[in-house]
Structure formats: C-alpha cells, structure tokens
C-alpha cells in the first residue's frame, strides 16, 4: 500500500493544503477564490470516489495505512467505507455550497477565516474516514479547534461566552470518550505491523470490534462514549450549548456546525458505539429513544415560541437530530437506512435554511420574526426557493427529507408504535412553526425595513437553486443514496449479531 494516491489522502490533504495556502500566501484578496476552487476540487474527488466502491479491487484506493505510533499499536489508518462515503460526500458537497453562498459577505482577515474553514473540513473528513480509534480521536478534536476560533473571532456580540460553552461541553465529552477508548484499547488484542513487530494492544477499528467485554463493563463504557456523542449531536439534555452557539457563530460556521458537525455524533454512534457495545446498546436503547423523543417534542415546542429566526432554525435542527438518534436506536434495517439518507438530506436542507436566514439578516439587519413582513413582495425568487426548502424541512412528499423520514418513522413504528406516535407530534409541530415563520416573514404587507430590500444575487441564487435541485431530485428518486448505503446497513447488522 502507499503506491497510489488514494481518495482518503486527497480528501484530507487537499483541505489542509488549501488552508496552508491561505495562511502562508497571506493574500487577503485571493483567499476566497482559492478555497472555493479547492472545495470544488474536493467535491470532484468525492464524486469520483463514488465510482470506486468498496471492492477488494479498489482496496488500495480507498484505504491509507501509515505506521504512526508503533509502540502503542496505533496506525494512521483512514479509509472510505459505506458509512464514511455518505458523510464525506455530504462534507464535500456542503463546503462549496457554503463558501459560494456566503461569498458576498466580507470578513476581516479573510485569509485566516477561510484557512480555518478548510482546516475544519479536513478535520471532518478525517473523522468520517478514521478506521483507527486514536486517529479518530485526533480528528474529532481537530474539527473542534478551528471552529472554536472561527466562532470566537468572527461571531456575534456574545460570541465568546457562547462559543466557550460549546467548547467546554464538547471537550469534556471527548475526554470521557478518551477514557473509554483507552479502556477498550487495553482489552484489545495484539497487532502485527507490516514489518513484523507485534505490540500487545491495538487501536485499530477491527481489533476494537473483536473485544469481548462483560455487560457491566459495556454499560460503563457505553455511558462514557455516549456522553461525548450526545453532546455533539446534541440530544436532550445535553443540548443547552447549541442554540446560543448557532446564534452567535458567523453563518458559514453555523452551517458547518449544524449541517455537518452534528452528524459527527450520529456517525460515531453508528461507527463506534453500537458495534463496540451491542449488549449495552440493547440495555440502554429505550432510555435513549425516550430522551431523543423528549428532545424532539421539547425542541419543536421551543421553536414554536421563538421570535429569533436563527434560534428557530437551531431548535428545529435539534428536533430533527433527535428523531435521527431515536431511529438509530430503534435498530432495524429500515430505520438505519432512513437515518443514513436523512443525514445527507438534513445537511443539505439546513444549509439552505441558514443561507436564507443569513440573507434576510444581512439585508435587513433583523433577526426577529415579529419585525419582518412581506419579503415576498420585494424578493420573490428568494421566497419561492425558501418555500421549497421549508417544505423539505417539514418532510413533505416529493422532497428529499420525505424519503428519509418515512423510512425512519416506519422503522420506529416497527419498534414501538407509541414512540413513533409521540415523535410524530414533533413533525406536526415542525410544520406549524416552519409555515408560521414563512407566513410572517415572507407574506403579508411590507413594512419599513422589508420594502427596501433587493432580491438575491447570482451566487445565492446559484446555491439555492442547487439545493432545491437536490431536494427535488432525491425527493423523486432517492435510490442512488439508498444504493450507496445499503451495503453498509447490511454489514452493520451482521456485525452486531
């Protein structure tokens, strides 16, 4: 191995390269174009990787394995499998959309801003591809640090407190996970390296999967890992950092956080938590589903009462993530399949929502729903596009979210009717607050502020059209996404049985 330029290499090193360009060239003007170019390039690489599916024939293109800490039995091991492919695709798709969509906003010190953005992308890619627990942990943190600086430097008024709360929550969570990783590592079997050295324990994912732990141990470790992931998602009651952090971060960063970073939690549950501790999962799953569903209903109710449009979107995101988490722990093929495609769809839709919210805030300077009215009269294109995205947010048929939510609900229903029924209330409420927001903000008569605004620019139009295109395409024909992940879902159930 190592004779090829592999996809995992490209997907992690290209963003790092872009950020190095941004930091070292110090060219404030070109930074934006550099990162847009690179992000499109990365998107291309990600699309190309779809054609080299996880076949033994292409093994060398999909896996990178370098000797790293030989003494500990940790390799730098990243690779793309079914689960990772979906999320790297999301990351690669989301970044160009985010960067182009917000490219009219100018930030002070753009070179640093975009450099840190690309570093975040590298971290996210690494998380989704890591096949070695220590590599995973490193990337997990690497994704956090740039976001901390991005939000704290370029964010809103209360950015420092909000971002710091976010940082401490996730940092504490990941340290607990680290203890869990260490514990499992010390029970993992030995590892042999290519050059023949054998070390006592191993950090590799496969070795982790084979660890036999007693039920008591599993329960402990499950708690340690789950706290880290629950904070990241976030599910109730670990969500309190989220609305403020989303509200205060600059919009591109909010998009990254809500579109992609929350998926880190869901991803990690599928990749590490459930396969490592299957018995503990069975033991705890009802509790977690109940927590998630409380989160769905609670967040939906709070969203209904919000006057701040950004917080509305933030709480709506908590509700959607809660539903996905519940569906994961329903643990049947249909629900997991639903989660897999919904992870992608939610990412795309929420980016669209944030973009529209950002456009409104940028044009009017107002975040309060009660002070906005009648934007449809002055910005019809924006309104139509937003309407489609909003309908996707409430998972209307023919939109992409419908396919995912339908599968998730039928999975949840198979598991327990009552859970599905209560979670369904959340969906109904989501229709209430989304449509209510649309009605108040876009329709009605114009007021002093909204009379002045102009319709959207070409870049925003382009991005929103692409998002709407994806929404319809997947809404009508979700099969490609299902094909992409079907293999993973089957393997997943083979593994935990």
């Amino acid at each position, binding site marked *: 191995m190592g004779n090829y330029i592999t996809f995992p290499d490209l997907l992690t090193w290209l963003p790092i390269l872009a950020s190095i360009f941004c930091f070292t060239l110090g060219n404030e003007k070109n930074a934006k174009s550099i990162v847009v170019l690179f992000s499109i390039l990365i998107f291309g690489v990600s699309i190309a990787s779809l054609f080299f599916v996880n076949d033994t024939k292409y093994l060398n293109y999909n896996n990178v394995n370098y000797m790293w800490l030989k003494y500990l039995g940790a390799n730098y091991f990243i690779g793309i499998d079914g689960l990772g492919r979906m999320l790297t695709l999301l990351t690669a798709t989301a970044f160009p959309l985010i960067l182009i969509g917000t490219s009219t906003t100018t930030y002070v010190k753009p070179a640093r801003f975009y450099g840190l953005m690309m570093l975040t992308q590298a971290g996210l890619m690494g998380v989704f591809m890591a096949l070695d627990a220590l590599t995973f942990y490193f990337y997990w943190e690497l994704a956090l640090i740039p976001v901390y600086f991005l939000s*704290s430097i370029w964010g809103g008024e209360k*950015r420092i407190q909000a971002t710091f709360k976010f940082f401490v929550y996730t940092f504490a969570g990941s340290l*607990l996970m680290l203890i869990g990783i260490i514990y499992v590592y010390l029970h993992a079997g030995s590892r042999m390296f290519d050059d023949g050295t054998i070390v006592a324990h191993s950090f590799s994912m496969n070795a982790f999967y084979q660890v036999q732990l007693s039920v008591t141990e599993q329960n402990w470790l499950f708690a340690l890992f789950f706290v880290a992931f629950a904070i990241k998602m976030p599910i109730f009651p670990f969500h309190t950092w989220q609305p403020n952090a989303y509200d205060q971060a600059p919009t591109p960063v909010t998009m990254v956080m809500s579109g992609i970073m929350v998926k880190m939690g869901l991803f990690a549950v599928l990749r590490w938590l459930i396969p490592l501790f299957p018995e503990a999962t069975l033991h705890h799953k009802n509790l977690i589903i109940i927590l998630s569903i409380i989160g769905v209903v609670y967040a939906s109710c709070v969203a209904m009462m919000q006057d701040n449009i950004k917080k509305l979107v933030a709480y709506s995101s908590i509700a959607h993530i809660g539903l996905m988490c519940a569906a994961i722990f329903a643990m049947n093929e249909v629900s997991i399949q639903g989660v897999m495609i919904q992870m992608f769809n939610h990412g795309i839709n929420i980016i669209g929502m944030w973009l529209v919210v950002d456009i409104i805030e940028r044009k009017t300077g107002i975040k309060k729903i009660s002070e906005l009215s009648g934007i449809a009269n002055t910005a019809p294109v924006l309104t139509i596009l937003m309407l489609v995205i909003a309908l996707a947010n409430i998972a209307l048929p023919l939109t992409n979210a419908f396919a995912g939510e339908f599968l998730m609900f039928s999975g949840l229903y198979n598991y327990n009717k009552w859970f599905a029924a209560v979670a369904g209330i959340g969906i109904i409420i989501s229709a209430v607050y989304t449509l209510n927001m649309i009605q108040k903000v876009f329709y009605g008569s114009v007021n002093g502020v909204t009379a002045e605004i102009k319709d959207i620019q070409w870049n925003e139009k382009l991005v929103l059209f692409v998002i709407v295109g994806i929404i319809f395409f997947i809404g009508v024909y979700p099969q490609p996404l299902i094909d992409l992940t079907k293999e993973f879902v089957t393997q997943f159930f083979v593994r935990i049985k």
Partner: protein
Amino acid sequence: MNAIILSAIWGVIMMFCGVFIKSKTTPKYIAIAGLISILSSSVFEYLNHKSFFKIQINDMLRFDNFNLAFIALILLCTLIYFLLNGAEIEKVGEHVGEYYALIFFILSGIAIAATFNTLLMLFIGIEIISIPLYILTGSDKRNLKSNEAALKYFLMGAFSTGIMLMGITFIYGGTPNATFYIDKIMLGTGQMPILISVGLLFIMVALSFKVSAAPFHFWTPDVYDGAPTVFTSFMSTIVKVAGFFAFIRLFEHAFGSMQDQWQKLITYITITTLLIGNITAVFQQSVKRMLAYSSIAQAGFMLLAVFALNDKAKEGMLLYTAAYSLATIGIFGVLTKMEDYTIDGFNGLAKAQPTMALTATIFLLSLTGVPLTAGFQSKFFMLMAAVENGHQFWIVIVAVLFAAISAYYYFRIIQAMYFKDANENTIITTTINKPFLYMLMLIALMIVIIGIYPEIIIGWMYR
C-alpha cells in the same frame, strides 16, 4: 554521574565568574557553554553507560536508561530555559553569575534525586535542590514580596525536610536488616510493619510538599507569585518534575510491592490536588498566580503516575517532563515580557505581537491537553497508566473532568489575546528581539512534534 559532578563543578566556576567578570552579559554565555557540555556528556553517558569519572559510590546511585534519559531531558529543558530567559535573568539583580551557579547546583541535586538508590542520597538530592531555590526565590532583594516568599518557603521547606528525615529514620529502624538501600527494604506483600507505615506516611507528606500536592500546597501560590518570574518558571517546571521523578523512583523501588496499601492515600491526594488546583485557578486574576495554581493542577495529573506505577506511568512521566516543562517555560517567557500580569494585560496581544500570541496559544493548548500537542500525549499516557493499573477506575473520570475545567482558565488568556481589543495596559515596553521569538517558535514546534510523534521521547526508555 557526569551530570552530577560536572554540574557541581560548573556551579563553582559560575561563582568565580561572578567575582572576576564584571560584564553582566558574559555569565550567560559561559553558563550556556557549560550546560551544552554537561548535556553532551550526559548524552554520552546515556549512550555508552560509561561515566568520565570513576568514583566508589557503593551502589548508592544507580544509572539506567530511564533516569539517564530523564537527566538528559532535564538538561535539555534547562538549556532551552537559558536560551529563552538569558536576558531576563540579567535583569533580576547584580549577581548574575551567582544565579547561574545556583541553577547548576540545583541541576546537580536533580541528577542525584533522579538516580538515588539509598534514602540518604534521596535526602541529599532533595536538599541540594531545595536550598538554592530558597535563595533564588529571595533574589529580588529589594522586593518585599520576594523576601516574604523566600522566608515562607524556607520555613515550610525546612519543616518538610525535618518530616522527611524523620520518615527515613523510621524506615531505617523498621526494616528487618536496618538498611538505607531502597531495593533492600524488602517488605513482601503482607501487612506493613507499623514503623514502616509511619515512615512511609512521613516521606509521602514531605515529597507531596516538595511537588506541591494538596493539602501540602499552601506555600506554592505565594512563593511562585513572589519569586522573580524567571525563577518561578524554573522552579515550577524543571524542579517540580524532578521532585516527581524522585517520588516515583522511591515508591516504585522501595514500596512497589505494597502498592495496594498506600494507593488509596495517593488517590485522595491526587483528587484533592486536582480539585484545589483547578478550582482555585479559575478565580485568579493574575496570570502568574493562575499559573501557580495550574502547576498544582498539573501536579495532580503527574500524581497519576505515582498512583499507577507501571511502564506507561514512567513513559508518561518522561512525556510530562518534556511537555509540561516546555509549555510552562514558554508561557512564563511570554509573561516576563508583559507589563501587566493580569489577564486583561493580555488583551489584544494577537494584534500587537502575532508571533508571541500564536506561540502562547500553542503552549496553552498544550497545557490544556488538546490533541496534536505534547500536553495531550502526556495526559493520554497518564490516563492510560491509571486505567491499566486497574484499581479505582473512577479516578481517571475525575481527572478528565478537571482537565475540562482547566480549559476554562487557560482559554481565558487565549480569549484575551485574540478576541478582545487592546487597552493601554497591553503595551509592551520591553522590546522583543528576534532571537526570543525564534526560541518561542522552536519550543512551539517541539511541542507539536512531540504531540504528533511522542515516540521520540518515549523511545529513550527503550534502546
């Protein structure tokens, strides 16, 4: 052996420098030259296990890969400390040569404390470390705070020395064959004799005092705050890890077989240290005082090595030596250039001094234990050691929760530097010269390299 004798000799040479050389800058170069030669001779000793000196020591000192590597690492950190802080040491007072002389004597003591094989040598080593420190603490003669700190340190240090000596006596009396040799104490695994357990308790108290573990930490904030900042930097890093090294060595070789009997005590000391260090650091306004409490907090993490006493713990100790010393020396180096020692004094530093702010950020991230820095690796190994030990699993959970709290106070400085605007206090009157910045960058680079590839440090243990 090389390090012990050459450091002592060089200490004497530095004293004479103080007498004969009137220039204030020359002693620095002599000291650096001396330290480089001591460093290379101890690396030579590490590589060949041969000393330049043939002295009959009756097996009172033992040299192995682990402690020779440790000594070399300590000398390396001291070299970096000299290179970074040379100019600041000159500012403390008139007798520059003597400050260096005292530091060399301390190094000699550290080398003894790291290689002792009898309780007497441990005592001598710890004393050789302590006495010059009392003087260094009070070296800012016209400053009342410095005097107060020195007196406080001396009185309490003398008291703890007495306790330690008492403990040694008890152990001497309690062992079946009346010996000072730590590997001949031979206690087996049964119930400890009462004399031994009293002696062990006394020694544990005295060593906890030296490494500023709670509840024996009360001298630390005042002394670290009162001493000239350059010397605080030295004593809170190099001296402290040396104390830990002696602690680990003694408990491994003398009392390792009875670990289950004293481990609970260490657990409580660890938890108390973490609690007091971290919680109190949160409320500090002065960065110097905050770093004093943070050093108590870090001591709590290093105590995990004493708690665990396995191979991982030793590796972790080596990593901690490098990671903690480098980062703390670096952040103190930045602090010496500041006009205002409060956290607000750092406001807007990123705009005024981007390189200084960036490197300081790396040091603080390392102290917090963020991956890709050496601080993460050292904490990681400590946690691994404690988990591998298998007893009292909850201690690691408490430890990481406190590590998360530590993010709060370290990040306050980062927030001040990057996210707040400068005020009139931020103005740095001292000019920052290029070599100083290069040294900071070098330290930051070393931290990142160790963070990515810790085997360059750990590998020294296995050769």
